[in-house]
């Protein structure tokens, strides 16, 4: 089998996969690399949440490449890899249609409008590429409409922060302090985002471009920051919504370096009485 045939086959396969994946690696840019490299393995990694489609070439020590020998030895493996990927593609993200987006937005807004309070446990995972393990912290989040939020970390340390008007009320293992963030526009923006992301009402925000997709478990909305200041810290917010309840089940804040913070909500309870005193330090 010659190079052109291989190119054609790969293009067909990749384009087929592409129909299931929103972010697409340009196949024409991908193929010529095979001519120059001895490819031992091609991996398609389906990172559902990050929604990226990565292809990695593992170079062998043999620098001279023979495409036909590559084909003989690796085509079956390659097809198997593709099949496996296609097998999992049903769990991968699909782009939502305009109609689906419109219905989804309406439902989220309707739920958000009815939500006066939220109490939810959460696990937070800080992922950094160089770490062996994500850093896990856990706690409870309380929200009271229109804009009171308290995050209490209980494990592995005691720390709580209340967002109140232009202030942050912090209780750091018993040490209480107030931080005035009135002049800090960036912080204000982050706070607004947090409030909006919890209530799920952030589709009118002109400061983001949005992408909507879905998988078997969730609707996934990706918010790309337009604001240059904010982009320095967080380039993208990814919110996962429960497909039945239309509430936020996961928030992922992705930094320009692709390191991220993931917050997964569980045991969410809505509209239970939360007294205002809870939001005092």
């Amino acid at each position, binding site marked *: 089998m010659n190079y052109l045939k291989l190119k054609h086959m790969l293009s067909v396969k990749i384009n087929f996969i592409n129909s299931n994946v929103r972010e697409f690696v340009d196949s024409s840019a991908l193929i010529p690399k095979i001519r120059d490299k001895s490819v031992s393995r091609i991996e398609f990694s389906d990172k559902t949440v990050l929604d990226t489609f990565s292809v990695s070439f593992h170079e062998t020590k043999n620098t001279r490449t023979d495409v036909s020998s590559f084909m003989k030895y690796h085509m079956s493996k390659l097809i198997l890899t593709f099949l496996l990927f296609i097998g999992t593609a049903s769990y991968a993200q699909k782009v939502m249609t305009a109609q689906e987006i419109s219905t989804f937005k309406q439902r989220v807004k309707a739920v958000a409008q009815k939500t006066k309070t939220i109490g939810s446990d959460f696990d937070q995972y800080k992922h*950094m590429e160089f770490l062996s393990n994500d850093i896990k912290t856990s706690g409870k989040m309380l929200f009271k409409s229109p804009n009171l939020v308290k*995050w209490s970390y209980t494990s*592995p340390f005691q*720390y709580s922060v209340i967002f109140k008007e232009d202030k942050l009320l912090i209780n*750091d293992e018993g040490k209480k302090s107030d931080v005035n963030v009135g002049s800090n526009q960036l912080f204000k923006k982050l706070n607004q985002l947090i409030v909006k992301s919890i209530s799920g009402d952030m589709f009118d925000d002109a400061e983001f471009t949005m992408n909507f997709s879905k998988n078997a478990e969730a609707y996934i909305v990706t918010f790309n920051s337009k604001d240059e200041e904010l982009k320095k810290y967080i380039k993208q917010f990814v919110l996962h919504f429960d497909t039945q309840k239309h509430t936020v089940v996961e928030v992922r804040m992705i930094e320009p370096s692709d390191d991220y913070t993931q917050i997964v909500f569980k045991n969410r309870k809505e509209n239970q009485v939360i007294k205002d005193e809870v939001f005092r330090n």
Partner: protein
Amino acid sequence: MRFLGISFIVIILLTSCTVASTKDFVVVENTVEKYKNPYFADSSKDYVYKANFEVYGRTFGGLLIIKKLATEHHRIVFATEFGSKMMDMELINDVFTINFIADDLNKKIVINTLKKDFKILLQEEIRFDKTYQNTEATIFQLVDNKRFNYYYVSKKNQQLVRILHASKSKEKIIFNFESKDGKMAENIIIDHKNIKLKIKLKRID
């Protein structure tokens, strides 16, 4: 002539001064050439600390994450409890690279202070110049460009319990360590004597 006299007095005063905490030191013979700082030395471990900074009466906190990437190569990240990165830097031998720093922290004095602290904290191999002893510890002295780093190794359990960074006459920074096994520091206090800055680090699992 009068000026010369004053100068002499000043010089005599300066040279006769020693750091108070080194006064009970007795010089002993070097039995080994180098000492290895055991903390932050294991590249398979993530060193994660809850950090608390006390600066001129104000306090703020966050997470300090340190990872050894190779010999004399560490990554140091400071993030808020929420996970937002405030500072991300790398130290390779003596050279710092800042990958990211939040605008609020991007000040020369902050960067230089942290650079100095981390350089001392993370230096793995210490080719010391002198060995001392007092009643509690064996102390290795490293001369570092007109400054001295004293590494206190407890006689009781052979653990590194303190690093003192000093000039000839003044204590500048004291690093106190608490460890269960001598390999992982559970608590670290970095106490600056020339500025009002105290950094408390408490390890989290």
